[in-house]
């Protein structure tokens, strides 16, 4: 349980006699619950509204709040003392901090009561006219408390409010205004003033009074005395069950009042309340601002369909993508035409969510929208060439559950439009979908990545996959206790791993190894069949791990890793092609000799033209376009450039081919699924491994070919935009790396 109390200070030695004399009297101290002490007394000196107090005997410092209930030489006061497990501490005198070094002493709390009813009785006896203030004080304390109220406190509050409040009228008609909440209350009252008010309702579960903002309107009723009015209250955000409401409390200048739920009240069916309110609008009297606000509330109800298209104002809106990542947020991408800036605010609404989109979004160029509406009568003369920033893209953090999501457009003139947000879970091709729409030529591209696409892809790539368990298909027999689990990632079109299995079969190093094939979504449908045939032919124990949701090879590998049975794993891209036998034992030896602590070992990787693809990474100035400024050393140079000799420590291993302990791999691969591409994910793997104390080693003299997988020719556009996202993601995760590169 959280507490606002400061840590206990050391008890003061009793010999110190600098304490101020007590100028107060405690009439009653009631232990409301184990954390809260309620005091009623008098004090000759004004007590602070908010402060701390030292419990002299125990040395505990607790939060202290007080309110004077009158005036005079020694007015009554009510106070609360709050600290975790306060009930277990001896109290003694209370030294209340007055600020600036001063203190006021409250006398020793000799007789702490447990019966809350005694507090109410004492109030009635000593401060009968100040019950409303006591209620104010207690309710305000609720608002300021960080901890949830306990049932005993809730009960006390209810009792005080009950005692303080007088009945002022009745609630006769109740109704929920929509699936996403909202309450209509209609009845009569004498004291409930029109306009914005706060109504308090007891929480059905805890009994604790809870405040709700309400718009109150009045309408004449012939059946009431002249002092009373018909009232209608619209609680736009309240999520209350009409049949559970017993009372609605409200504060007037004269004190607390309540509307009692009429015994024969009407509870309108869901959805009918809004129509009922609209019927009532004509009868409302009073100030125009309130009537207008209620009118707006009556119409500002989302009824499941697009009403933006029916707005009279030149405002139109549509969505291209709406994606909700469970427990993380909602991503919306689309366009809004508003050439005259009529829209005052755009709010994303859904279960438990109300978030301003227009404060978070980034605008993007959408010349196609200008073109499409250029001849629309509503926009004639309002659209201008070159002013095409109609697009928008927004990631809105929201933890709301599945339900009805929509955008609410509030126009300056009070009109409201709604646009359904058909928020779907992230599709498997989320990355290409959203990344293809990012215009790299737009100077705002990096902002879009940092604020929207990055968080979206990170959230979608991380959380949801945890629950997905691949179905593993065994083929070609098993090794009883494999020495190394070779995990091959098939991330691109590839219908076989014949070469790999053939090379393993002719390389004695691979005896005693098992092979796990982590097949991403782009693996050819023929792969399983071809793999089975090859596994049988080459007598290789192979297990196929289909990972259709994988974003890239390393993501697929991460899903396959839990199935590795050997103490070490060799991660390999399908593009890695061994040139000569015997290389695996070189890697194993390097790992054996790595000394204390863990390590991950990569060989040199060459392109098919024998130029260098991987020979370690290094951080470089001026490589800001690369994640963390990490540049593959010697990349593209003839391999003759490479040094000779044994293992060298490098900034990162190559996830395309790396041997490491299986437990380390499992820990290091935790974050790879968030990345769009394998390269940044591979760097993340190394960096994460290093946080677990591992060293990254490179073996210059062990050389393999690693061709770039995927179709020959131009790189898809979304790979370029994905690199922007990955850079952001990597540098967000590893800010030190980026800073070091920049330095």
């Amino acid at each position: 349980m959280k507490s606002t109390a400061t840590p206990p200070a050391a008890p003061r030695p009793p010999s110190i006699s600098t304490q101020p004399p007590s100028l107060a009297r405690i009439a009653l101290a009631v232990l409301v619950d184990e954390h809260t002490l309620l005091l009623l007394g008098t004090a000759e000196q004004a007590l602070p509204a908010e402060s701390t107090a030292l419990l002299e005997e125990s040395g505990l410092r607790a939060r202290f709040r007080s309110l004077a209930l009158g005036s005079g030489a020694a007015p009554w006061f009510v106070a609360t003392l709050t600290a975790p497990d306060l009930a277990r501490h001896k109290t003694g005198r209370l030294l209340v901090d007055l600020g600036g070094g001063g203190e006021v002493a409250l006398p020793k709390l000799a007789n702490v009561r447990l019966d809350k009813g005694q507090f109410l009785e004492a109030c009635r006896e000593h401060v009968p006219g100040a019950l409303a203030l006591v209620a104010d004080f207690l309710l305000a304390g609720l608002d300021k408390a960080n901890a949830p109220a306990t049932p005993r406190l809730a009960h006390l509050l209810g009792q005080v409010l009950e005692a303080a409040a007088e009945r002022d009228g009745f609630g006769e008609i109740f109704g929920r205004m929509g699936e996403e909440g909202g309450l209509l209350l209609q009845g009569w009252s004498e004291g409930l003033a029109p306009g914005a008010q706060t109504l308090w309702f007891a929480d059905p579960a805890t009994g604790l009074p809870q405040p709700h903002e309400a718009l109150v309107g009045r309408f004449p009723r012939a059946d009431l005395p002249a002092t009373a009015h018909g009232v209608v209250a619209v609680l736009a955000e309240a999520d209350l069950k009409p049949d559970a409401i017993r009372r609605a409390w409200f504060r007037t200048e004269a004190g607390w009042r309540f509307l009692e739920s009429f015994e024969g009240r009407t509870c309108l069916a869901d959805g009918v309340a809004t129509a009922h309110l609209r019927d009532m609008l004509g009868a409302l009297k009073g100030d125009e601002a309130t009537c207008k606000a209620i009118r707006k509330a009556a119409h500002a109800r989302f009824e499941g369909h697009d009403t933006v298209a029916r707005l009279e104002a030149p405002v139109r809106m549509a969505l291209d993508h709406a994606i909700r990542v469970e427990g993380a947020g909602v991503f919306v991408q689309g366009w809004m035409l508003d050439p005259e800036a009529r829209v005052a605010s755009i709010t994303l609404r859904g279960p438990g969510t109300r978030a301003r989109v227009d404060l978070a979004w980034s605008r993007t160029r959408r010349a196609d929208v200008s073109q499409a509406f250029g001849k629309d009568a509503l926009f004639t003369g309002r659209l201008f060439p070159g002013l095409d920033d109609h697009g928008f893209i927004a990631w809105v953090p929201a933890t709301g559950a599945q339900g009805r999501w929509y955008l609410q457009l509030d126009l300056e003139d009070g009109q409201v439009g709604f646009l359904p947000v058909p928020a779907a879970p992230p599709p498997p091709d989320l990355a290409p979908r959203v990344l293809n729409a990012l215009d790299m030529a737009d100077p705002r591209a990096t902002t879009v990545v940092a604020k929207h696409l990055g968080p979206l892809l990170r959230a979608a790539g991380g959380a949801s996959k945890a629950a997905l368990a691949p179905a593993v298909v065994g083929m070609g027999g098993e090794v009883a206790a494999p020495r190394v689990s070779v995990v091959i990632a098939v991330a691109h079109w590839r219908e076989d791993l014949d070469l790999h299995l053939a090379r393993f079969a002719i390389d004695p190093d691979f005896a005693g190894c098992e092979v796990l094939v982590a097949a991403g979504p782009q693996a050819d449908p023929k792969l399983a069949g071809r793999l089975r045939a090859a596994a049988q032919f080459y007598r290789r124990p192979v297990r196929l791990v289909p990972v259709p949701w994988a974003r890239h090879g390393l993501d697929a590998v991460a899903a396959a890793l839990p199935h590795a049975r050997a103490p070490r794993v060799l991660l390999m891209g399908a593009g890695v092609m061994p040139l000569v036998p015997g290389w695996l034992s070189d890697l194993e030896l390097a790992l054996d000799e790595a000394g204390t602590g863990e390590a991950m070992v990569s060989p040199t990787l060459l392109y098919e033209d024998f130029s260098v693809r991987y020979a370690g990474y290094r951080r470089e100035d001026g490589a800001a376009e690369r994640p963390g400024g990490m540049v593959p050393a010697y990349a593209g140079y003839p391999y003759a450039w490479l040094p000779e000799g044994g293992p060298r420590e490098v900034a990162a291993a190559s996830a395309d081919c790396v041997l490491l302990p299986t437990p380390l791999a499992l820990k290091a691969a935790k974050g790879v699924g968030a990345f769009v591409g394998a390269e940044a994910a591979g760097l993340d793997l190394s960096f994460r491994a290093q946080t677990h104390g591992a060293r990254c080693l490179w073996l210059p003299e062990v050389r393999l070919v690693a061709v770039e997988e995927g179709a020959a020719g131009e790189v898809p556009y979304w790979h370029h935009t994905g690199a922007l996202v990955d850079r952001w993601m990597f540098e967000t995760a590893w800010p030190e790396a980026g800073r070091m590169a920049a330095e």
Partner: protein
Amino acid sequence: MTKRVLVISHGHPSFSLGGAEVASYSLFQGLSELPGWESHYLARIAPPVQAHRGSNLMWLRQKEREVLWHANAYDHFKCSSRDLSGIERDFIRYVRDLQPDVVHFHHFLGMGVETIFALKRAFPRLPVVVTFHEYLSICNHHGQMVKTGRFALCYKSGPAECAGCFPDIGEARLFERELYLKSFLGMADLYVSPSHFLIDRYVDWGLPRDKFHMIENGLTVEGIAPPRPLKEGGKRNRFAFFGQLTEFKGAHVLVEAVGRVPKEVWGEDGALAIFGGNLERQPEPYQKRFHAAVEKAGERVRFYGAYRSPELPGLMKDVDWVVMPSIWWENSPVVIQEAFLHGRPLLASNIGGMAEKVRDRVDGLHFRAGSVEDLVDRMVEAIGTPGLWDTLRNGITQPIDRLECARQHAVLYDRLLARHGGVSVGAGALPVERAVAGPV
């Protein structure tokens, strides 16, 4: 003790009359005739022949010690079998039962290069020999080492170079192809090539030179055609082309050249006899080009259609010169050996296996490959130079026959067997253990 050799071919001459098929069959026959050796012949067969349901091995009423293997699941790009289980089910079963001392591949086309692996795994000490008849492992363009599109000669194979011909495949896949093939070829104990030129190409590509041996293909001699008798004042003006009418074979170059030889040189009885076919299977533009050249050459060109080896003596008797105008490298064309067998000098393109096998101005004349003009000059020289034909005929070295070819192979086989202690290492005697290959 008789030593047993299994000769493997990608086709049986009874069904596919290609040079490699004929050469492999000749070796099989030659070994059968060699004392102390026993040979067997396994050839691949494919549709339209249908496989049996129970076994992909079949006989099809061939000779004793011949068997056919129906293998039709094949990836031409990687020369890879698509029926790996079939390799064990049919091929290895047969080898295990046969217990050869040596297995000699004349090709793996259609069967899959994985057959070498399967052999080496099942019988690690069984010597495996591979004969290369063209550049299929090196070149994805039908093994021709000729650029796609413009048919320029290709001088080097490699992922980058090959991607120029196959941009859609790309360097990565081409590298994978190369490495894949080398993975298996590296497991063979020896390579045989009928030309030094081909050896150089494969060595350039990365196979070890010390594994290579050059042995000419052996001919099966069906009789020798005498020189064409000349009348008084007659000219040696009868030319012949033997081979398929594909663009690579360059018959169009020859026909165009024939049309341009001056009438007074050509003479009244000059002729170009074309023994070959399959023009109708060639791309239409080539057919048009060829027909246009034939039309221009008029009656000088005569078509005789396809032929079989036994017919050769009869065909050669009316021929003075054989022309080999291929615009690709060739390896060791059997046509050259057959021409030499019958004492006919050649006019040959000055590249590759042709330049190696035909010695310029010793037993033939070279002309610039693909050059109609140069060929015209050489034809004019051939017809018009008195005594040249006789000089070149006298310079011909008789090609080896199949028995000599088999002898030379037997020497190699013995050397391989000696590596294993000089004893027969027949498959049945071999323990089945894990194969260990050398580096690629």
